């Protein structure tokens, strides 16, 4: 699996995602996964199997988070890549950008407590019917870190009902840290090939830094890409 990690000016979890794919998912002696960076003014994502929009503060995020990033040239390419069925994972700021770009519904606003929160949270795996969650068990609890000031997910009732009815909520917080509606921590698009989530799986891929729970998400993506290759 070849993964493109988009670098916006102000991205700061880009190296972490790169490291998780190249060093944690792709164990020594294997050659199953690699990551490369994609600069924000690229007009194509290149020959990749998946795109990660990493965490950070794209363009400073002095306006609404992700509001400027959505206009960057690379986002046109990401839109096209997603429309063609490519896997897109937006983490934290990446989720905010996906929402601003209209690839996912709803909005992410300031945490209910009005403060930035960095801590580990429990997540309920709501659906396993996605290329990002297929190696998990339905209902399984994942422990992943969050680190955000604007992670409160909101949407109108109809959208929320639709997300539930179409099984598009990927993760819910077991203890809601930010006031998100219906405890939503991550959602899928209708095509199920785009996932946005506030928690950071790339920070939980190495026992030395606390946990390997996040690897399941990257392993699911790897599985989906490999079986897709086989199908071809």
């Amino acid at each position: 699996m070849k993964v493109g990690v988009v670098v916006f000016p102000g991205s700061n979890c880009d190296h972490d995602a790169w490291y998780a794919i190249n060093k944690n998912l792709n164990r020594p002696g294997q050659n199953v996964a690699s990551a490369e960076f994609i600069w924000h003014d690229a007009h194509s994502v290149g020959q990749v199997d998946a795109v990660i929009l990493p965490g950070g503060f794209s363009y400073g995020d002095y306006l609404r988070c992700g509001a400027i990033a959505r206009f960057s040239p690379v986002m046109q390419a990401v839109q096209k890549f997603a429309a063609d069925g490519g896997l897109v994972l937006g983490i934290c700021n990446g989720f905010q950008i996906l929402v601003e770009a209209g690839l996912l519904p709803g909005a992410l606003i300031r945490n209910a407590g009005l403060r930035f929160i960095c801590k580990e949270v429990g997540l309920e795996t709501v659906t396993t019917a996605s290329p990002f969650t297929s190696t998990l068990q339905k209902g399984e609890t994942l422990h992943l870190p969050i680190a955000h000031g604007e992670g409160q997910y909101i949407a109108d009732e109809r959208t929320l009902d639709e997300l539930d009815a179409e099984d598009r909520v990927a993760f819910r917080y077991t203890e809601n840290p930010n006031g998100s509606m219906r405890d939503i921590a991550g959602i899928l698009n209708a095509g199920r090939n785009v996932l946005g989530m506030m928690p950071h799986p790339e920070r939980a891929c190495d026992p030395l830094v606390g946990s390997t729970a996040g690897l399941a998400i990257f392993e699911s993506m790897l599985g989906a890409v490999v079986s897709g290759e086989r199908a071809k």
Partner: protein
Amino acid sequence: MTITPEIIKHHQLTQGEFDKIVSLLGRQPSYTELGVFSVMWSEHCSYKSSRIHLKKLPITGKYVVQGPGENAGIIGIGDGWVVAFKIESHNHPSYIEPFQGAATGVGGILRDIFTMGARPIAVLDSLRFGPLTGSAVAERNARIVAGVVSGIAHYGNCFGVPTVGGECIFEECYSGNPLVNVFALGVCRQEDVFFAKAKGIGNPVIYVGAKTGRDGIHGASMASAEFTEESKQKRPNVQVGDPFMEKLLLEACIEAMKTGAIVAIQDMGAAGLTSSSCEMGSRGEVGIEIDLDLVPQRETGMTAYEMLLSESQERMLIVAEKGREQELFDVFHKWGLDAVTIGSVTEGGNLRITHKGVVEADIPNRALADEAPKYDRPHDVPPHRTAPLEAQAFAASADLNADLMKLVSSADLCSKRWIWEQYDYQVRTNTLAGPGGDAAIVRVKETGQSIAMSLDGNGRYCFLDPREGAKLAVAESCRNLSTVGALPVAATNNLNFGNPERPEIMAQLVEAVEGIAEACSFFDAPITGGNVSLYNETLGEGIYPTPVLGVVGILKTEMPVGSLFRSVGTDLVLVGGFGTMDGQRFGSSQYAKQVLGQLWGLPPALDMAYEKRVHEAMREIALLHLAESAHDLSDGGLAVALAESSTPEVGAKVTMAGGLRPEFALFGEAPSRILVSTKQAEQILVILSRHEVQGGVIGVTIGERLQIEDEGKNMLINVSTASLRDSSEAALPALLHTQHAV
């Protein structure tokens, strides 16, 4: 313009200093030149009161690559890798405007690190505020806490550096003078280190980063004066930070350094354009010529005086190889940053500034950077102290359980989660041990090494005895590192004191510096750089002398031992033994402060040779993985350490020995002690005896309760660990009148 005595005074220069300027120039300075001298010769930039004493500090050691004098100190960590680190204060700005003051403090120290070519991988902060209860200004103090914490979070989180540890203490003396000391550490290859030494006549001087505005003018001189009622009018002197710009500057600088076209680089911090140019010129013994018309400006109509003294943030000055400017411009433009040639390196050694065709300043670089006055300020009096020296009698405690609860829920000792959860302490995925433990640990991914860091300082100890208090701070910092298995190898210090023109304050500074010198030599932790913040006084009220030590240690990258008990039924070993305590030395304890509301006597007695043996024994225990948990004893003594190590599930049952009065035994703060839980007590005891360190099994971990009894089996403490934890966690949000993070 004629320079009148009023103008000289307004620039916080003395008549003697003015005369020295005239003799160095051989003529009267222009108004602009006077401004330039006033910032470069300010206490903040020139260290004029402390310089002769700082010379006493040890600065060499087997790990030291670069000692004091550059933007940051550098030590080798093996395999050709180095770390650059330093601590810096932003005390005065943080009082006037807490959010921006603290934020730009973080920004300034980060630039000092990446100026050297090192990518910042860790930040720690040492904070002091006025009390949150029982003070007329408690509400204001709470607002300062909230502002400072969110300022640090704003800058560090956005920049993408983890804030991995620190300390936070509350005292009345910091009400009008909070302390915001920020430590940063970065990593790079030794051959990639950059220095701020201009070279090569004719080489271009390039300005990069944010445009220059009128913000922060005279910030350095503001930081060199006491506060008065008019200080609030100084708000425009506080700079405004843009962490996004700084992040771009970091990435662009690191990329530009790789081109090989950079000769020297320095950030524009205090005194901005002036200090960066004259310091680079002075180090390289060359001149620098700058045309201010070429400086990118954010505002119109700025004078030479304003541009030279502006402290606009996120700017760097580069000396480049002539003819290779375009390579650098391309990198900076890629990151959307200004990069323009504003001058060149010249012969002769002068800083020559022109503006609109007029020479505004023409001053020898050395005069500005190296020939500032050095004062041996009078200090032949006892250090200032108002507390009684002799032991104070106090009644036997009626309820030791309540005392323990009071301590663990006090602002000083309670959980600081409310603070550190606002910091991204994980970004860059190197954090092996984050906030809340004894020392923070970050790994260096490129090597098998990790770096441990601890910031420590105790103003109460130093107020009672500056020399011993400073030694205790060094000892504690080194003990914190040893507790997690790291070898202390170097240190940085931030000296926060009052007005040095008062002999009894100067005496505090001299005593403390000599104490640091003695302890850093003894513990093999040379000082590679640091910061001095004086005039921390408001309306004549000085702060406690507060030297803050930041010690850096190295250890192999592996799962570190934590401070929390992990399982029931393990032995508890008190490495170092119960120690001694008496009525005089108990007066400096947290018990005396929180329960008795008093301060007297002396700090705890420190035997450095014994302390060092404790560290060596502890590192061996950690290296052999004999400990399930390890936690250093400090504020609040053994009882508080036991409470801090307990979880709602696992507590402890301990029997005291030593025949001390219960308060002394439970809450005395004798140094040289570490609490270890282990399943291999026998092996640990063998190690202790080999190192001639006292210590034995004092108890065992049990479920859900903390029970401490005396030799006669009388129960002194018996509380539920869940209630200890709850009180500790709930305290700070309650004191700040905010909700527990949802």
